[in-house]
């Protein structure tokens, strides 16, 4: 799998179709991201376990001259994140080339990923998506009844040390300045920030752009299951509007259009006009 990727990268750099390939490299300091620019040192290219490169690609392109064309060794979630960034004009997808790598089965299990492969798989074989029913964190945090869920989530959020790692690692989250740090919405100078105005606000901001790559959960030092915040909302977006973040590059988020002009063929105005009548379950 590794040498096919290396061969593709060598081809792209050799013929000059791409100015650089962003991937992981094994060096004396272990594995770290690296921008390969001459085909010679592709020897150190490595496909170690998952390292989300989408956010790094944005910063790299931001630092390079405008005409720079970048190939990125993408797993499924990287590619989906780049598509979402293209929709929000953060990145010029024309300058990007995806070298698709499919994730292994247990990597998909670890990330609770339903589609562990990019649209074009150059290396690796498509593994079966993770089934959430077995996962005990999902059972505790999402499927138990309301009082237990609240207790679990509040206890998890009270561990937060406000390192902003979840926001810094998220590929689709790059406002500057960010609303979580302006002192109006979230109190400054105290940790265990308030659950609503920090965690749930961040979750809502990326709700329609989240590609479920798990970078936020991996970057959380105190192990808050941040992915489980996004899964119900992604499911709701899929159920109501058949919208999946990062799959169709032309279709904008359904939250930005009204019910009639909804690109997916228009959905009739929902019958409920008063949410009290809607049954929310216990």
């Amino acid at each position, binding site marked *: 799998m590794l040498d096919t990727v290396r061969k593709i990268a060598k081809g792209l750099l050799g013929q000059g179709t791409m100015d650089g390939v962003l991937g992981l490299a094994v060096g004396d300091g272990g594995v770290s991201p690296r921008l390969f620019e001459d085909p010679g040192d592709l020897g150190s290219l490595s496909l170690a376990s998952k390292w989300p490169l989408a956010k790094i690609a944005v910063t790299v392109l931001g630092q390079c001259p405008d005409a720079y064309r970048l190939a990125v060794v993408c797993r499924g979630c990287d590619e989906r994140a780049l598509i979402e960034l293209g929709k929000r004009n953060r990145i010029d997808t024309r300058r990007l080339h995806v070298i698709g790598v499919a994730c292994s089965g247990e990597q998909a299990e670890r990330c609770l990923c339903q589609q562990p492969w990019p649209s074009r798989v150059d290396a690796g074989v498509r593994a079966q998506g993770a089934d959430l029913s077995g996962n005990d964190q999902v059972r505790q945090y999402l499927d138990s009844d309301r009082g237990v869920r609240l207790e679990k989530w509040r206890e998890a959020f009270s561990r937060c040390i406000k390192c902003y790692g979840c926001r810094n690692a998220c590929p689709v989250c790059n406002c500057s300045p960010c609303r979580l740090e302006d002192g109006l919405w979230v109190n400054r100078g105290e940790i265990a920030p308030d659950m609503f105005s920090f965690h749930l606000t961040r979750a809502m901001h990326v709700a329609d752009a989240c590609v479920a790559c798990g970078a936020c959960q991996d970057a959380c030092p105190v192990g808050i299951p941040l992915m489980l915040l996004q899964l119900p909302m992604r499911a709701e977006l899929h159920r109501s509007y058949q919208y999946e973040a990062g799959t169709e590059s032309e279709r*904008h988020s359904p939250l930005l259009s009204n019910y009639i002009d909804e690109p997916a063929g228009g959905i009739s105005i929902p019958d409920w006009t008063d949410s009290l009548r809607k049954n929310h379950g216990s």
Partner: protein
Amino acid sequence: MKHTDPVDCILCRCHGEIDGVVDFGQLQKQLEDDSRLRSVSVGNALCLDGELESLAECAGGRRPGKVLIGACSFLARGDALIAGLENCGISRDRVFVADIREGCAWLHADRPGKATRKATDIVRMGMTALRHREVSADVNITVQPRVLVIGGGPAGMAAAVAAGRAGVAVDLVETSGQLGGMLNRLSRVAPGDRSAEAILTPLLEAIQAIPMIRVHTGTRVSEIRGSAGDFDVSLASKTGSARLSAGAVIVATGAKPVLPNGQYRYGQLSGVISGMELEKILKVDRSVGGNTVFIQCADVRNSKRPYCSAICCPAALKNAIRLKEIDPGAEVTIVHRDIMTPGHRLEADYRRATAAGGCFIRFSPENPPRIEGDNRVTGIRVTDILAGRERHLKADRVVLGTAVEPRIKTDRDDPVMTAIGLAADTHGFYRVQPFLHTVETDAAGVFVCGTARWPVMVDGAMAQGKAAAAKAMDLVAHPVRKASRLIGFQAVRFACARVSPTTCSGCGNCAAVCPYNACGLEKTEHGLRAAVNPVRCMGCGSCTAACPNGSISLPELGATAMVRMIENAFTAGNLTVSNALNGVADRSAPGCRDRRNGGVVNQ
């Protein structure tokens, strides 16, 4: 306007209506403790002339600050109070009316203690809203003294004539080769039996007589840019294209009759014709004989088109009378679900039709009439609800009363109109402002009339044309207009969105969500940034909700004002906020917000 400007508070007793429930002593004490209010004064009835002004004078006598009025609701007397202060020099932006009558005293008459606490909170929320309020930018628009009328039907012509007579230059654009629209295809015009020419010719002569009207037939509007007061219109026709500017646009593009394909074996049997085909026959061939059956509500008032087209019944009556005149011996029957003939003249047509021998049969939509005949129609079988039995009619000809449907189905099909912010309702007809604004649309400076707005008879269409012309002239009459006063349904626009380019990341959420296409992305030296068209923006705030970091905001109710209002909502009554649900660190953050000490909050 800075948030440190002094605020003077004036409370109104409303002759016991408010202070009968709210304990003004307690309210005044709480407000006087608050360091953010310069003075607190109480009046008996502020709406009686003189009292508010005198209180405002003595309060604002020193440096003019802002005035916070605790009285009745905006809809009751609030607006009048603001207008009163505006007369004596305090502008609208410096005044806030906190509703402690309808919103508090009258709602909670049986709970005086809590009503007092609620009144304190309402006034305090008003104060924070006033302190953090800023003023939106307002632009002056130079208005082009020209009106563009799209569509040369009766509505468009009437609008053109009305505007032209008033001395306004008009461009009348018609896609077909000649003016007249639907009139050219009608023999007679309901109600009454005036011939189409009788209406059409005076209109055409009037248009000829007015030099200010320029007619462009066989021309299509290819693109409209700009906004109210300064539309840049480009026309396309066989002979080439042209560009012209216009201050207002009147849309009179009419609607297209529905071809009842698949209904009552139309298209399979000859002799089953639509209403428009009958008009064509009557217009040319005077001698039309034989038994005729009119079937009304063909492919309309159903789930696909849940509306009544208002034209088919009068047309059917008019044609029935005409057929009876031509061949009194013929049997003319109108098979209908309901006959819609509002007004005395249509009622008179109905009576003349029955007098002339036409008979009416009512069927229920569940089992509609069935057409008999193999290649030519011979008769129809229909169950008459009133008689309760099925009737068999001989017919040489069956006329289907078809509906009128909009030219476009949804906004996206009509890029020209969407570009200027015109929207269609769920049925596809152009959408006008709800509540009493018949011809104004969501887009400032764009008006709509005739069947493009909703199926209507010719006289109704012409009346709407004149109304649209009047509205257009109202806009075009002033050479310079303030953008904030362009909106139909408000005296002054609430706000105009403002972008802070340094913090905007150019994600385009606001441009996608704006209902008026007033917000777009433009290239600046540090990349794509949002930009607001100050004329089109209506101040609804959709963009502020879509913007993740608040780069675009409504100055009148910005993020700071909203958050401070939320914080002050439940401060009276010494609320502690280490709450069960939130359960996180209590509210003793280093900032100055601590509601433990008697609710003194500093924002």
